[in-house]
């Protein structure tokens, strides 16, 4: 009988050791963090998200976005995460992050969706990549403009970011890339393939909303491979069940999606996001870990829409009112 008692004590003991060691003690260490704030109790970070964004997080989790998109940036010594830029987007293209993620970034997150795989890019700073205010306001009419009207002030596509098909000669279109969606109008190759700033002035026949704007997210969710040559190989499923197609009654809805080719609804119909889709996009656009944290080094020269050379003074990394970041790395 003695053997049985010691067996059970051993079984309980080993597991209790692991339970206490890996969940209880860490919980004492990082389980009750407070937001960071400066001396005047202002500039609080992080802040809880809005109700819509919180609901969007549930939709993000329930539809399995977590299995392909991470929301954690590894430190610079462990990976190239902080050096990576997003594929589509204006030039200079938005960086994935300026700094690594820290426990404090997630204190209001439930469920926390750190992710485990990257079949798609990290989205920890997805909201940060959105166009800035003036770009956004300039882009707003573009989202509602009828097809084939040029969006004003479209940022030039980065060198590999050609807006549409018809660029098979460009380096951005790998030979293996699948055929473009049927019916999508080919872009004028000369204008599309040109990385020069002049391209920004040329008409964008596809009416693509500015990258990472609200309209862009909706269209990307609805038709992930229609966005640019960069996305041709994307394996993201379309989330069309988050959108409704219905006949236009009276005026076209303000939030109706801009779609072309085979994606476009028949004449007299429109595709509008459901409330769930709006929540999801609100959530994606709320993701932002760019605020400096005292415990984490921020990359030098970090600035909104960075990509600027690291010659920029370190102080420029901090948005107004926040404490200066730690000295530049290395």
């Amino acid at each position, binding site marked *: 009988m003695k053997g049985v008692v010691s067996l059970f004590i051993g079984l309980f003991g080993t597991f209790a050791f692991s339970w206490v060691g890996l969940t209880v003690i860490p919980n004492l260490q*990082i389980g009750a963090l407070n937001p960071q704030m400066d001396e005047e109790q202002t500039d609080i970070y992080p802040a809880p998200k809005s109700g819509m964004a919180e609901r969007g997080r549930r939709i993000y989790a*329930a539809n399995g976005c977590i299995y392909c998109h991470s929301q954690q940036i590894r430190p610079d010594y462990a990976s190239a995460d902080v050096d990576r830029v997003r594929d589509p987007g204006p030039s200079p293209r938005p960086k994935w992050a300026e700094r690594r993620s820290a426990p404090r970034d997630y204190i209001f997150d439930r469920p926390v969706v750190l992710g485990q795989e990257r079949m798609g890019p990290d989205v920890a700073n997805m909201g940060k990549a959105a166009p800035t205010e003036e770009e956004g306001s300039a882009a707003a009419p573009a989202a509602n403009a009828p097809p084939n009207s040029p969006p004003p002030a479209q940022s030039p596509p980065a060198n590999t970011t050609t807006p549409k098909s018809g660029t098979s000669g460009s380096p951005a279109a790998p030979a293996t890339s699948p055929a473009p969606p049927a019916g999508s109008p080919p872009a004028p190759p000369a204008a599309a393939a040109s990385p020069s700033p002049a391209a920004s002035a040329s008409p964008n026949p596809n009416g693509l909303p500015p990258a990472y704007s609200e309209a862009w997210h909706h269209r990307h969710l609805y038709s992930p491979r229609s966005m640019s040559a960069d996305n041709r190989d994307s394996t993201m499923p379309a989330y069309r069940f988050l959108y409704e197609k219905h006949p236009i009654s009276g005026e076209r809805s303000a939030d109706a999606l801009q779609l072309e080719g085979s994606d476009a609804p028949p004449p007299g119909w429109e595709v509008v996001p459901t409330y769930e889709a709006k929540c999801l996009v609100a959530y994606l656009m709320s993701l932002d870990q760019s605020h400096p944290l005292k415990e984490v080094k921020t990359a030098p020269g970090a600035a909104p829409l960075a990509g600027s050379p690291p010659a920029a003074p370190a102080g420029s990394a901090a948005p107004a009112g926040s404490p200066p970041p730690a000295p530049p790395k290395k």
Partner: protein
Amino acid sequence: MTPAADIPLKEPTVSAAAGDAEQLERARIDASTRVPVLMFYASAMVWLLIGTLLAGFVSFKLHSPDWFSDVSFLTWGRLRPVHMNVMIYGWASMAAMGTAIWLMARLCRTTLRHPLLIVTGIWFWNIGVLIGVVGILMGYSTGYDWLEFPPYAALVLFVAYALIISWAVLMFRFRRGDQIYITQWYLLGAFLWFPWLYAAAQAMLFVVPVQGVMQAAVGWWYANNLLFLWFGAIGLGTAYYMIPKVIGRPVYSYHLATIGFWTYALFSSWTGMQRLVDGPFPAWMITASIAATILTIIPVATVGLNHHMTMQGYFPVMRYSPTLRFTVFGAMSYTVFSIIGILISLRSTARYLHFSQASIAYSHIGLYAFFTMIMFGSMYYIVPRLVGREWRYATLIKLHFWASAYGVGLMSLMLLVGGLVEGVDQNDTSMTFIESVASVLPYLRGRTVAALLLTASHFIFAFHFGLMLFGLGRTSTVPTFLNPVEAEGSETHL
């Protein structure tokens, strides 16, 4: 094949009257477990087929995303967790409990009392899994890996588990004989660890939720411990029973087994955080788990050595015994699983492999190549003893084995190599992100081929199992061998 002559291919029998009494007792014990264990296996088979079809679907959709993507409950992001949870809670857990209950009855040399209560538990468990699956499909997934079932489904599972396992523990209470065999250590461990693990995870994630990243820590602590302390423990315990039983030879060393068991319990329970390497956590947590993962080489070495020395000279039996062939494959995969676990969790390799398909390969090697293969082996041993018939077609068993072995081998290879390619590309900032995705696509297509092989293998097995269940097996006193045994040349078993 001369060695076959002196190799006992039947259950080792003690001759004459004493043997008869023992045989009779065994038959009585087996009969008492017949209904619940067969119910476990039948449920597990149904879930296995569902999970397999889902796996093929998920694998295909990952490189061809537009397939059925417009239907909310057929979207990849919902089917993937359904596949995972069906396999974990439907197939693997039910097969594990079936085998564990049977082993427990045999090893405690006691009949299973009140099997109807276990049967009730099995119904509850099935209902719990079904509720969870429907919940995920309807969009109520919790978003925690391996715990996607909505909490109300988890509650049903918990009630079911309490009904089932209290009987296994009761059997232990009424055991005869003083000796506690190695298998029983593993089984008792699994029986006690699982409810603790499951309750702790549910409590810390849903009842009194922990803050922020601690949820991810609890989640991965749960997932890895489920893999090691629930599936791994039952798998190893089964191997410790089946290998000596089939070859009719005692385990090589009791001391090695003791060392192997306690180091396994101690070190593997501390793994988990390495799946969050370089994430937003205090570095000590991750380092502790990496160290524990490296230390699991001790149980791997001792258990592996023990099995190897037990098998020494008896490897040719694998030519004949389906049970042994599957079990040894699984036991060897345990070594591979642990070594790959170490290789992918080191910080220097995690840089490339962390967010890649390699972690999917790791889970599949653990849950399939190691655990599921041992479960197949145990089913080939146990089912004939429950239905009183022998497996009908040796060819089907061989097909099952080779399709499974090649399937999981190909899948692991594709995911590991594809993961490495993907991870190296993602760390090369001169490449766009989408190029890293494009580079892994050929490997994902290869994985779909592997999924087809596994699908074939599982349907073959399910058909064969169905024959047994409906009493269409062979009536014979000799088990079905994979190849005719020359020593007993008069019998051909096809």
